């Protein structure tokens, strides 16, 4: 959590400098891109655990390959939903 705060802290001045120049530092498309990026990050974190568990299950029983694959990519739906935001801003 602490690392996230420092990251945000370093981003904030950039946003502010943009505001001083008149326009927003991040226009709508940029913000949408950020949304997709963050969603992908979240999906990646979620897949880390599921993927590890799925590999374990497949190692024990090869028939579980299909099920393991589906469960592993399930968090990927997050990114697809986040893509909706991009289309809304275009």
């Amino acid at each position, binding site marked *: 959590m602490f690392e996230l705060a420092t990251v945000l802290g370093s981003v904030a001045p950039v946003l502010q400098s943009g505001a001083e120049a008149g326009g927003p530092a991040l226009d709508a498309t940029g913000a949408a891109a950020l949304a997709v990026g963050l969603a992908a990050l979240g999906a990646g974190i979620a897949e880390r*655990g*599921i993927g*590890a*568990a*799925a*590999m*374990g*299950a497949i*190692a*024990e*029983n090869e028939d579980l390959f299909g099920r393991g694959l589906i469960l592993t990519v399930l968090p990927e739906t997050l990114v697809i939903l986040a893509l909706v935001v991009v289309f809304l801003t275009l």
Partner: protein
Amino acid sequence: MSVKTEGSSNYEYVTARVRARRAKLFGDDDYRKLVRMGPGEIARFMEETEYETEMNALGARHSGVDLVEYALNRNLAKHFEDLLRWSEGSLYGYIARYLRKFDAWNIKTVIRGIYTDSDRSDIEDDLIRTGEFSERLLDRLVDASSIEEAIELLDSTIFGGPLEDAYSDFERDGVLVPLENAVDRAFYGHLLDDLPSAEPDSPTALVREFLEAEIDFRNLRNGLRIARSGADIDPAAYFIDGGRLFDPEELRQLASNDEELVARIREGPYGDDLDVALEELEDADSLIQFEHALDAALLEYSGKLSNRYPLSVCPVLSYILAKEREVENIRAVARGREAGLSVEEIEEELVIQ
């Protein structure tokens, strides 16, 4: 002496594999079939299961019930080595700490082997090659020509110091009891080493809870055995520190009185889990029945913990216990059939969750 580890743990991977393996353990039906088989049939049955590789590998050198027993041991070692191979980080530390149980077993086997002048190959067959000791150390232990030499080899391990202390007692009395006690005490004494009493629900706290339960159950069993055998031994002398149910003084008082002991356990933290075992203790006069009930209770308790905390060390420890039980059950069936016990008698010996 703690196990040095670094990096983060891979609970997901290890628990997934362990759960798959646990599901493959023998169930009620398999045991029901096994109990009704003769020794030869048991061996043939085992060749078609999980134990196939080991049965084939050892089939040339051994036969009958010995073959079954050695195959069981080797399979056990294989699975537990796998656990150590997969796990990383602090998870490895937790598992390795518990698997030192087999280091203790190996040391006892070697000491007994040297004491009885057994062949090198006989001792080697009885080793369970898992735990913290390297293959090389085990080989050198088997090669040791005297107990003193074996103890010297163990100098750098947790067992070295206690064994050296016990050696003079052994020399004076000429019995193995002091040495074996020293080994067991070293194992249990180091079980809770460097485990801080962490905040609840953290991985460390769970390991602690599990190991404390194990120590409590061990104390309970020792106390009962002393009480039931009527021997004039001070239970407190065999007390293992670290449990949360008794302190030595209490155990001494309770060991002489069955009813109070049962009441005390019922009030304690394991009261609910031990319900069945306690009832068994109250009606049965046989200590063996109660010990089996205790084993089943520990198994159930570990199963409960592993369902409550799926991504923790609990499923792994619970698997280790279940696998050990399976090996002991099959051994009991095989030996029982060999000795010509009846089906009912053997079924009483089994501990099935």
